[in-house]
């Protein structure tokens, strides 16, 4: 075990960005993936595209080679967001996948425009997947996903209900198409593929199948994007909520915007006994130990894991640190600087109560420890 002091400054993860007058919520920004990794991925993606063009790949191959390097990066960031924002990250992943799906339908409609309505040449970018089975599985997944979103968020975020309505209509259509495709292929191939609402279909409409399904997807995806945007402005860190459970939702959202992320290695010292208190910490991954230094050496006071916090005593009492805190594993912490912490204490009744209770318990434990092992 090494014993270096954590040298890396905490990374700002909470501050919303402002681009051309639009405030971009912090949860929509890259918070875990370093900028260097993004640049590297861009280079890899460019090389993939260039190589596939030089090697005469079909168009879908070129697109796939361009997209592939982004997949691990996307899921790495999404996994971190899931650990820190919970269900919001699932909604985000779902929204991104659905944007891709709408992109595929947009490509098909564009191909129809280019090839004067020739359906044989208009199957989207990944045309090999233009199968009833694939449509059915994907759209059933979308519908089930929206049912889950409705259960979790639907009555506080009503755009999800709009999306669910159109997804449900779409689902009945695909159930029908998949059913006749499997049970009566001859009928399917000679007109059944129009489905329920397609031109010449069971009920029918002026819209031919590709346009009808483009419209279905449009009305599923656009409200979903709006719902996700709204959720982004109200996402809060789940570790903060676990550490200080009595804060209101709005307080959690506001404090989340001031959080910073700090990664430390095993053995790094986060807080040194006797130092001036300048920061509050919440463990979000890994483990730290709290040790009290005395004349007889160190005594371990506590082991803290995800959702537990430290550093509040020095900030609330304006006294030097009462113990040393050291990482026992590679860990990640969320931190608030002094100003943000004091703002929390003075403005959040619930948060202050949680901190006060923890501080008194810990001070009593330290007093007891000091009595048991006098210097």
């Amino acid at each position: 075990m090494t014993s270096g002091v954590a040298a890396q400054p905490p990374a700002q993860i909470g501050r919303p960005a402002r681009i051309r007058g639009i405030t971009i919520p912090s949860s929509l920004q890259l918070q875990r993936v370093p900028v260097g990794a993004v640049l590297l991925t861009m280079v890899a993606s460019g090389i993939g595209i260039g190589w596939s063009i030089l090697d005469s790949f079909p168009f879908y191959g070129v697109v796939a080679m361009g997209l592939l390097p982004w997949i691990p990066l996307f899921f790495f960031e999404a996994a971190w967001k899931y650990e820190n924002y919970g269900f919001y990250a699932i909604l985000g992943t779902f929204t991104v996948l659905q944007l891709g799906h709408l992109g595929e339908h947009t490509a098909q409609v564009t191909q129809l425009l280019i090839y004067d309505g020739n359906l044989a040449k208009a199957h989207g970018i990944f045309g090999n997947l233009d199968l009833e089975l694939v449509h059915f599985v994907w759209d059933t997944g979308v519908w089930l996903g929206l049912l889950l979103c409705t259960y979790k968020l639907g009555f506080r975020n009503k755009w999800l209900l709009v999306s669910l309505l159109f997804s449900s209509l779409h689902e009945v259509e695909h159930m029908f198409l998949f059913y006749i495709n499997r049970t009566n292929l001859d009928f399917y191939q000679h007109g059944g593929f129009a489905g329920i609402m397609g031109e010449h279909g069971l009920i029918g409409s002026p819209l031919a199948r590709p346009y009808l399904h483009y419209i279905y997807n449009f009305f599923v995806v656009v409200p979903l994007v709006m719902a996700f945007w709204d959720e982004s402005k109200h996402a809060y860190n789940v570790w903060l909520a676990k550490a200080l459970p009595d804060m209101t939702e709005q307080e959690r959202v506001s404090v989340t915007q001031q959080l910073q992320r700090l990664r430390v290695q095993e053995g790094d010292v986060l807080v040194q006994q006797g130092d001036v208190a300048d920061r509050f910490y919440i463990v979000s991954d890994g483990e730290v130990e709290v040790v009290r230094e005395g004349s007889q050496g160190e005594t371990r006071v506590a082991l803290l894991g995800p959702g537990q916090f430290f550093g509040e005593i020095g900030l609330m009492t304006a006294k030097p640190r009462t113990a040393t805190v050291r990482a026992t594993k590679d860990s990640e912490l969320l931190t608030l600087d002094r100003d943000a912490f004091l703002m929390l204490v003075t403005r959040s009744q619930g948060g202050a109560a949680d901190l006060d209770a923890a501080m008194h318990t810990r001070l009593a434990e330290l007093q007891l420890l000091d009595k048991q092992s006098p210097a």
Partner: protein
Amino acid sequence: MKNQFTAKRLLFLGALTAAVFGFVAWQQTTNPPHGGVDFTATRGQFHHYIPHVIVMALIVITADALALWYGWKRHTRQKNVEPVTDAADARLNPLREVEPPAPTGGASA
């Protein structure tokens, strides 16, 4: 959460919908999709599947109703959280950038 169906958003969505429908209508009229498929299915063949479609619709409606019912129950359980207000946010987060309030109109003539 504040009103999500604001006039600005509905206007944006309306304009986008009009653009999409306009494009589709234009394409459907000028380049109707065709692909060498014989459309020989009769109305009777379609009508044969009406009961199947009704069952499919009932499955979807039932699942939707269950999600809405349990979603509503979950929502009412969590209703004791503080409503999101600009004032509450601004009180706690001084760094937050707030759009200035819209100017009130003057007296009309």
